């Protein structure tokens, strides 16, 4: 009898902890939503947390963002899409090829492990080391304030994710599948294209999502390499700093707008996110 009470107590305690942890993870989003529903003067004068009870929610800020500032926001989101998709296509394509190469061939001298580690080590490179020369080069090439400049940058920075994740994915496929196709006269390219590639589709999707999310959220290079026309959403978010102080309401609306695309994509490939973010070291 006491034992079962103990068990009940323990499980109640566990659920309390689980709920606290979840609330903690969700709280900033809640705060952002609540803030986006308050009028600016309410935000700055009456601190509050619960709509209806403490304040009257309004869509005023959303209206302002989507109508008056709609063109600016829309253009920034469009720029972010172009940049992130462009970078994702390049990184995922080259990363898939390189990942396959590293998983299926043997390299001598500079061995497979060395090449893999070299790709991984790119993530160790602080962006601050390359941002000044990048700026000077992009300026010389007349590419300042273009999508292309940021596509090149983000493709480079997300490539390690793509290579390592795809290498890991191809390593998991049994090589016999392709070998039997060769017996039937298929070439290496054909067996890659028609057997391994389709089987690796989920991993490719996960790779693409991770490359997309990192490119989408990149800020430093976007700030330095764009002036106006090619500015992505992260730079527009930084525009909330106003001479009269921080505009809380736009922080909230823009954060919520900006998180939607990568978060929705990530939920689709949830199973692979752990593997992707650890470069394939931990299977999710």
């Amino acid at each position, binding site marked *: 009898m006491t034992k079962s009470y103990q068990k009940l107590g323990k499980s109640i305690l566990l659920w309390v902890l*689980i709920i606290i942890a979840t609330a903690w993870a969700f709280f900033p989003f809640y705060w952002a939503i609540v*803030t986006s529903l308050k009028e600016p003067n309410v935000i700055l004068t009456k601190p509050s947390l619960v709509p209806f009870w403490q304040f009257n929610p309004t869509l005023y800020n959303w209206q302002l963002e989507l109508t008056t500032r709609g063109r600016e926001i829309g253009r920034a989101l469009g720029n972010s899409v172009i940049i992130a998709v462009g970078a994702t296509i390049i990184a995922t394509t080259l990363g898939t090829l390189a990942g396959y190469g590293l998983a299926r061939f043997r390299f001598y001298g500079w061995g497979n492990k060395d090449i893999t580690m070299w790709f991984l080590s790119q993530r160790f490179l602080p962006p601050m080391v390359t941002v000044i020369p990048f700026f000077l080069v992009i300026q010389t090439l007349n590419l300042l304030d273009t999508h292309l400049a940021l596509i090149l940058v983000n493709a480079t920075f997300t490539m390690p994710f793509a290579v390592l994740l795809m290498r890991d994915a191809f390593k998991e496929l049994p090589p016999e599948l392709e070998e039997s196709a060769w017996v039937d006269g298929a070439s290496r390219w054909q067996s890659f294209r028609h057997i391994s590639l389709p089987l690796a589709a989920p991993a490719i999707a996960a790779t693409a999502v991770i490359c997309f999310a990192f490119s989408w959220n990149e*800020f430093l290079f976007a700030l330095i390499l764009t002036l106006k026309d090619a500015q992505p959403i992260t730079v527009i978010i930084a525009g909330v700093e106003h001479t009269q102080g921080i505009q809380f309401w736009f922080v909230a609306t823009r954060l919520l707008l900006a998180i939607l695309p990568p978060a929705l994509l*990530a939920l689709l490939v949830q199973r692979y996110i752990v593997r992707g*973010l650890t470069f394939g070291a931990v*299977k999710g």
Partner: protein
Amino acid sequence: MQERSRLKWLFVGPGILWVLAFTIFPLLYSLRLSFYNARMGRPVTFAGLDNYRRAFNDYRFWDALEVTLIFVVASVTLTVLLGLGLALLFHRPMRGQRFFRSIFLLPLFVAPIALGYLGLTIFHEQVGAVNTVLRAMGMVNLPAWFSDVWLARLAIVLVDVWQWTPFCFLVLLAGLQALPEEIYEAAALDTDSGWDTFRFITFPLLLPVLFTVTILRLVEAFKVLDIPFSMTSGGPGAATQTYSFYIYLVGLRNFNQGYASALAYILLILMVIIAFFFFNRLREIYD
């Protein structure tokens, strides 16, 4: 497997060439810059090791390094420990685990720059979320988060911890779920102390994953820029001015590109030392 040596380079070559093209040149260029007096709008002159010498006599350099180390140690320790705690908490048969995991996935995808600004509103002294809660709990002397050195540091660490704990949690949970169940069945015969099971079985078996998580966190934490950039602008004073932030100020606000490049190279050397320290273990993990 038979080698077709041309073909294999067709697979791996483009990726290598791409990364080489976009990293080697900038790296060499900033190495060169670091030996020059290069300020925008002034003649460029050779400076030898002056920029490096200058760094070691620059108290802001040492301060930035210190701030970064404090940040890295605090953030990495907290995220890994909290992540481990959460992973142990959620590692049980339970309803709705997928739902909870989805919630914990979200923080990872918030743009850090946006998160920094949100942090500014959350820790705002008069109308921020944290102080609103503290006031409701009856606290009278509310903390002034952004005017106190250590509170400001705590605030940026907490925001970073919020963003990265889910990463540690999800990875460690995956690690726990990959452990063989038979071991626990066998252990249950010997002890029913949860602590013993953790100490002698779970922890040692989880070490490789803990190592991976820690090193990946270290690498990211050392580069931190966006959160202090948007949340505190490095203040109060230079209390939250991280190393990357200092390079940014020197190179991109004051346009002293030579000195900024030298500072960047010092950071790069630090990263190489850290990488070197872990490299053999990393090689094993990515076997």
